């Protein structure tokens, strides 16, 4: 079998919007050969996710299921998808350009002797895949030589597929995985709040960060005789969870 496949990403039991955008991109590629894409859902218990994916304008849904696929590991996902690709021989595989995809899709592509065309923003006839270069100062047009073609699509670049009324067929693929293949041991995800104050239980939050910064400047100018201290106010003594340093630090997806 061949065709266009799109890998959807499970985010705590739900799909992020970028997965539906990836389906839209897969539909653009599939339309050039007059077909519909097949959605791939990966995990240990994917029934409800597959049911939702089946309503999102896809021709078919495949559940790649194995207990070792949770929690996510690059080794597990790469091995499972490699086996699936060997069985199905797809022409094109579309991924959402997420942190997780960046972690395993290049390895999967290399294992297939291919390369991932990452962070695609446009798809033209050919298909030709457009992505940013030089941090957005230039655009590059790429074409794949041979199959399968692996691409990942940038968040927000394609209009997400809305739910349709008629659900697609769902099948299951069970890869052969062994614990020894998983070389990394991931811990539980945690919020980067170690240096911040949890404002969740607070009935009211006041004063604003701007007021605190103003006070800090005022305090600094009173206590420091060095002129540079007045030009550079000390950091605000706390950050909200919504604007913690980890959140506002440079985002690799945004920097492309």
């Amino acid at each position, binding site marked *: 079998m061949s065709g266009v496949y799109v890998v959807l990403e499970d985010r705590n039991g739900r799909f992020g919007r970028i997965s539906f955008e990836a389906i839209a991109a897969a539909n653009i590629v599939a339309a050039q050969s007059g077909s519909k894409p097949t959605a791939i859902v990966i995990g240990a218990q994917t029934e409800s996710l597959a049911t939702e994916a089946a309503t999102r304008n896809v021709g078919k849904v495949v559940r790649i299921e194995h207990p070792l696929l949770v929690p996510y590991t690059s080794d597990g996902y790469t091995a499972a998808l490699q086996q699936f690709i060997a069985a199905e021989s797809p022409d094109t595989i579309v991924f959402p350009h997420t*942190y997780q995809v960046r972690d395993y899709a290049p390895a999967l592509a290399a294992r297939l002797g291919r390369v991932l065309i990452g962070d695609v923003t446009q798809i033209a006839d050919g298909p030709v895949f457009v992505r940013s270069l030089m941090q957005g100062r230039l655009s590059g047009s790429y074409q794949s030589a041979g199959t399968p073609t692996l691409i990942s699509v940038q968040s927000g670049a394609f209009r997400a597929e809305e739910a349709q009324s008629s659900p697609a067929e769902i099948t299951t693929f069970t890869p052969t995985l062994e614990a020894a293949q998983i070389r990394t041991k991931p811990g539980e995800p945690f919020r980067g709040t170690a240096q911040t104050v949890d404002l969740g239980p607070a009935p009211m939050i006041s004063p604003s960060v701007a007021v605190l910064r103003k006070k800090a400047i005022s305090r600094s100018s009173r206590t420091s005789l060095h002129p540079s201290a007045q030009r550079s106010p000390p950091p605000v003594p706390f950050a909200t969870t919504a604007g913690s340093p980890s959140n506002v630090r440079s985002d690799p997806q945004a920097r492309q």
Partner: protein
Amino acid sequence: MKIIVCIKQVPERDAQVRIDSSGKWIEESDIQFAMNESDAYALEEALQLKEKHGGEVVVLSAGPERAGTTIREALAKGADRAIQVESDNLNTLDALGVAQLLASAAKQESPDLVLTGLQSDDLGYGQTGVIMAELMGLPQASLILNVEKTDSGITVKRELEEGWFQNIELPLPAVLMIQSGGTKLRYATLMGIKKAKTKELRKVSAADLGQSSAPSAALEKITQPQKQKSTQIIPGSPKEAAATLVEKLKFEVRVI
């Protein structure tokens, strides 16, 4: 611990890039080059690990002769020696082709740890480290902010999306892709700059490392992103016009 740090020389961030006559690359003659930002963080992480645990930091870089200045900068900051894979046509290779060269050179050193930056500021593929791990048969982790050596290997702090983080345990040897901003970069000292002139810089030709595979994705052309100014009058009731405006800002201008 023997650590290899892969470093790329890229155009400076504020360089005015112009497309060359081939339409497939940029004019290099009139721009300045610098060390890729996330590679500088990878180097810093390596130097800090060496200071804590001893060992050796070896810089590995592929590029034309001009890349030597960036390699010397890394040596001045504290790397012990360097290997330069000389090639004038790296931009004709895809991410797999470049990673094949680097992996081949790195394998000869039998390192405990290979560090790369998360992605380059020019092509922005963000795949070299992941592919190198695949080619070298090593476990890997990407988006790494911090590395701690343990009795059984290393524990790394990985950045996830939306302000989440995760600790991952890996055995050694391993490959890590370092995220920018995880630590503070050091400057080269005058003594370091002086010493760098006498440190070993071994040059190997790309041909000596074996043939890179033909690109499976070709960069067909580079273009300037389209910039246009236009005025549109959105017809309809305020409610309809607002809905149309949101649609345009989301999917045409892509600013919300």
